[in-house]
């Protein structure tokens, strides 16, 4: 292929050959999938058994596609569902203010939160909703396409009228005669034109202008636009309405001059915070019988990225996409990561080599280590197959029970002080996925122990309702029965006011003995004695302790992290596996890419990348070795300087390092050293560490600080 460096241009085009472009899409995919297979072929060729199984790769690829498509669809549904109320409110507001009675422009201010990338999804939903229910005349503007007022007006008018054209096309089939001839939209360039155009429109629905990112428009431009619209609204009876998207909490009054803001009749709407959506998403995607789930480390990683970085659902979903992809591609044992209905079939299809891969799964190895008697599983393929099937089915039902148990626990611990396992269901789930600390559990039990009968009753009721909502699987059906039992017992207790409590308060009042003054020590002794006195156990206490012991035995068992179960690696992405199968570091780099750090690290410690012995600094970060690449030496020298660097001195020290071995101490600099130095400094400039400076002759300015 031709070279791509030139002194006269920076763009080079290579057009696809015509024969391939004819049926390009199909051919391309074929080609690349071939490539994929080739990698798989190689990968298997290197295995000892030498059996090439393209089928495994194909299966994995298919499952990846299937899982991702379903995840995508589900998440889209969830997001559109969650916006439903807001969309309804906004469109209702628009249709309510459809008449042009008032002079001020009806404006819906929609506060959407700082997660800018997610706004696009909302606005496209809004657009379609408005189109369908309120008015076909919707113009969606964002600040990027409207650098000036002129552009803004043109864009708005173009979009308003083009909506109509598109609409006309649709209507033409139905009511072709009634169509009023409309001017070609290209000629409509001013509001005056728009007014005449609108007078010819049959259905007088409002003209809706959506400003997606209010904060990004310049104030002056926005004011002019608003005044302009208002002018035409009043004079030409154009029913213009605004919908403005707000990311921060900036009030309109701050953004606009009073003169302008009085032209707007605003009403604020608030979308649900994205964290609520995320909780919902995680519950729906990973807790409800999905095939692939996230392991604790990945879950934590994604959450960190979401909570501490962008709060954006779309980025979250992109990462989920990457995870699903990596799981199926990197993990050879992912071929069984499928729904239970397909499992038996797939296990049958596994080859001996595939089975060996499953035998390498760490959790299985651990299992064998602990159960010597099952050692025959390593050799007997048939036995292993059935074992595999059973374990995977067990795992599946276990993880179902696990998420349900999390729900129950969430209900039981809801509103407790300290929010032991987290406030939201998502937090509870993740806490137990990671493996909750036993201290928390103990404290939870303690808190339950001191709760009142009413509290306990309401908690159990809440748990029961969640159980009822979700379809109860067989393993947890006894859960609900025991919960019902407890609740009924408590009810009975309430209805029959206990008799034994009436007898108990007979105990002598130790605190205020009549006629006798206690000194400090006596009081203390008495208090201690009374504390030691066994309190009479009431009926309620009995039930409570029964309940607690039930929790300790039954629920706790279900809340063991699924990542302790056999073969969890198959279904839980990012579980601990062999280092080359481990996708977590890779995903971590996607969530938190560190370009700057990578450069700094390579410069300060080249051995970490090059892997050579000559440059390893043995922990002494500042050491400069003559064997290091020139760029690294120059960089390290420059970190010792302040804001300005003298080029001559810099070059001398570079020379000194290069000439360290030689004895002659002349300050003469060889041309080759000079050239190398020049090259390295130019590269450092390209990287952005230094800049030319006019403050002193032959000096450069350092642009970074610290190391």
């Amino acid at each position, binding site marked *: *292929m031709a070279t791509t460096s030139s*002194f006269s241009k920076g*763009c*080079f*085009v*290579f*057009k696809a050959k015509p024969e391939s472009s004819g049926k390009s899409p199909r051919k391309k995919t074929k080609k*690349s999938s071939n*490539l994929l297979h*080739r990698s798989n072929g190689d990968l298997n060729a*290197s295995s000892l*058994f030498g059996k090439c199984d393209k089928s495994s790769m194909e299966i994995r690829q298919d499952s990846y596609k299937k899982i991702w498509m379903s995840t995508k669809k589900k998440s889209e549904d969830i997001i559109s569902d969650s916006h439903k109320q807001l969309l309804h409110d906004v469109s209702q507001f628009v249709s309510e203010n459809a008449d042009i009675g008032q002079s001020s422009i009806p404006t819906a201010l929609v506060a959407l939160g700082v997660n800018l990338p997610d706004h696009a999804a909302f606005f496209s939903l809004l657009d379609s909703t408005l189109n369908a229910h309120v008015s076909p005349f919707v113009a969606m503007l964002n600040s990027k396409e409207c650098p000036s007022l002129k552009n803004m007006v043109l864009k708005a008018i173009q979009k308003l009228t083009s909506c109509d054209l598109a609409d006309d096309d649709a209507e033409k089939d139905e009511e072709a005669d009634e169509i009023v001839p409309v001017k070609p939209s290209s000629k409509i360039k001013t509001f005056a034109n728009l007014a005449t155009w609108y007078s010819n429109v049959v259905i007088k629905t409002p003209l809706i202008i959506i400003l997606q990112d209010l904060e990004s428009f310049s104030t002056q431009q926005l004011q002019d636009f608003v005044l302009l619209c208002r002018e035409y609204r009043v004079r030409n009876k154009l029913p213009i309405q605004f919908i403005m998207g707000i990311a921060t909490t900036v009030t309109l009054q701050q953004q606009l001059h009073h003169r302008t803001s009085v032209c707007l009749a605003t009403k604020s709407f608030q979308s649900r915070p994205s964290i609520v959506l995320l909780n919902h998403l995680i519950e729906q995607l990973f807790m409800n019988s999905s095939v692939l789930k996230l392991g604790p480390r990945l879950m934590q990683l994604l959450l960190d990225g979401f909570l501490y970085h*962008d709060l*954006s659902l779309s*980025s979250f979903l992109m990462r989920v996409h990457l995870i699903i992809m990596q799981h199926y*591609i*990197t993990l*050879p044992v992912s071929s069984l990561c499928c729904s239970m209905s397909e499992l038996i079939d797939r296990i049958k299809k596994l080859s001996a080599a595939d089975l*060996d891969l499953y035998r390498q799964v760490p959790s299985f*190895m651990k299992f064998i280590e602990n159960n*010597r*008697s099952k050692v025959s599983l*390593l050799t007997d393929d048939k036995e292993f197959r059935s074992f595999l099937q059973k374990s995977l089915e067990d795992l599946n039902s276990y993880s179902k029970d696990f998420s349900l148990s999390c729900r129950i626990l969430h209900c039981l611990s809801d509103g407790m002080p300290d929010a032991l396992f987290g406030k939201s269901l998502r937090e509870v789930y993740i806490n137990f996925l990671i493996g909750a600390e036993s201290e928390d*559990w103990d404290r939870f039990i303690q808190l339950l122990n001191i709760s009142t009968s009413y509290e306990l009753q309401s908690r159990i009721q809440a748990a029961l309702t969640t159980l009822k909502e979700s379809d109860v699987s067989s393993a947890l059906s006894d859960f609900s029965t025991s919960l019902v039992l407890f609740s009924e017992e408590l009810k009975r207790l309430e209805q029959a006011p206990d008799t034994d409590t009436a007898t108990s308060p007979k105990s002598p009042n130790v605190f205020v003995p009549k006629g006798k003054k206690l000194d400090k020590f006596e009081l203390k002794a008495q208090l201690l004695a009374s504390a030691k006195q066994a309190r009479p156990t009431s009926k309620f206490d009995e039930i409570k302790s029964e309940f607690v012991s039930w929790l300790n035995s039954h629920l*706790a*068992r279900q809340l063991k992290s699924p990542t302790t179960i056999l073969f969890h690696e198959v279904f839980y992405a990012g579980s*601990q596996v062999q*280092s*080359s199968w*481990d996708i977590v570091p890779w995903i971590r780099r996607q969530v938190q890419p*560190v370009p700057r*750090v*990578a450069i*700094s*690290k*390579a410069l300060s410690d*080249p051995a*970490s990348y*090059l892997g050579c012995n000559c*440059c390893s600094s043995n922990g002494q970060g500042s050491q400069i070795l003559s064997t290091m690449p020139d*760029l690294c030496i120059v960089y390290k020298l420059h970190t010792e300087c302040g*804001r300005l660097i003298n080029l*001559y001195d810099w*070059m001398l020290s570079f020379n000194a390092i290069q000439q360290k071995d030689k004895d002659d101490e002349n300050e003469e*600099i060889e*041309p080759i050293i*000079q*050239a*190398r130095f*020049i*090259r390295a400094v*130019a590269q450092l400039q*390209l*990287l952005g560490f230094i800049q*030319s400076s006019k403050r002193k*002759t*032959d000096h*450069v300015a350092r642009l970074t*600080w*610290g190391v």
Partner: protein
Amino acid sequence: MACDEKKRGSLALPTIQESEEDLDNVILEDIIRASRKKKECRTPSKKISSAEKSKSSDSSARKRLSRQCAEHARVKITTLFNQNDRYDRSIYAVSEDGLTSEESSEAFQPIADEEIMPRGEYGGDSEDEEAVNKGAELFGFGWKTPRKKTTLRTPLKTPTSALKQRINKTPNKTPLKTPDKGRKIISAQTPQTVRRQLRNKIVKVTSQVLEGNSDAESNGSESDSSSNDEEDRNELKLRAAKNQSMDITVNTEDYFLAQSSSVHTSDRTLNRLNNPRLSQEAVDSLMENFDDCHSKEKILLMKEYQQQFLQWIFLLREGFNILVYGLGSKRYLLDEFRTRFLDGKNLIVVNGYFPGLTIKEIFNSITDGILEHSGTFFSTVEQLEFIEQEFNNTKIEAYLIIHNMDGPSLQFSREQEVLCRLAAAPGLHVVASTDHINTPLLWDQRKLSQSKFVYFDCTTFAPYSEEISYENSLLVQQSTTLGLASLVHVFASLTFNAKAIFILIAQRQLENNNETNYHGFPFHELYSECRDRMLVNSDLTLRAQLTEFKDHKLLRIRRTPDGTEVLHIPLEKNQLEEFVQKHQE
């Protein structure tokens, strides 16, 4: 229990081991098991032991069978481990043939060189292994894997290498080895004190392991740092790709320290050198003969990155875009990717480091070159919309390779916005590289999520020769002399009045050269002075004259904080002096 012991004894293999090592294993294993149990659940189940007990009552025939089975299993396990290890290497590995394409570019010639690079296959070819060993000796870090010693990567890894070997040996035997036999040896041979010491040591190590168990990455890095037993190609991969300690601590105090301290540098200048200004050609010719000591390592690195190409293709096809970062020019890498995988597809290569590049040029090459659109566009916005529309589905696909996405002409918010919008189009696949350390500041959240970049750390250490060749280097080179030369040329073609004006500015600048707060010649003063000397007749003519200077970069016009326009000649003092003296006559 006796029965139980007997049963276990029957499972024993005739493995002859040194007693102490065996002892280690036994103790270690017990401890691991015990602590694992403790850690795992609140309700410890007795299943395991009961299962064993029930089995122990079986007949001797069963025992024989199980012994055979165990023997078989041992073989199987060892093969599994070996296989496991070789499996590690080849997730995205391509065969050697795939890697060295015939038309590999010039820069890549060394990779095809078989002498330097041992083959990537691990088929057990003795020749290959020799080459690998040789390579290991040569480069100081080998990826030789003695297959016999291959280790199992259980989650249990010990940080200290001395004990590590022992532990690593265990799994090969553990499923099959008899604890009881070991115990007998203990009582027979090992003194009590030694035993206790050993136990303590192991407990310590084991607890460390179990603690570190939850975090794979730290674990991985530990295993990396104790290098001896994982000396395979993977190590390089891990090192390069994982970058375990990827955090630099930033001390904000440092900033104020750096800013507050006054600059103390010597007054020595480059004029002290024999040849203070090397020309670009001289530098190039000198560097041509210079060979780098790390070329082998660099080739290895490059090779490593090339294994990701398949993944790149797959990601691109899934609608993601690729962004490579890291030290060193990534031009060769991307060129290699282009020639190997994108040959014969719609392709646009953009050299972001090219100073004259405009976004319009990129648009034009897409619309004219790929889409073959004959019409014209009113604005770039319209053109962009057209492109987005065309690539809205994957009917037409094109690959956009951008070297230096943060190059001098692309490092602006508007350009980045456009590039990210291009990247967002489903039909356009972008592979870009960045080098500047402040590049991430260019992207806000919206751009980041729009562009769907997947990041790859490709630290190549390759020289940026192409990239810096356009750059007007601050060092040494001809930039200032060029300025003087152009000044002389332009000056020669000026009218008399214009010459006088320029000399006027230059003189004023020389007079005030020692004053630190001299910003330039104020415009109104210049005007009055010029009028006095009858050089111009109006404000406008002077302005027209100045504009001409400005266009030839002879003059810089700035505004001071108080709003006055000042004029400044961007030349060194001595050169300006020389120039003025020459032309005053």
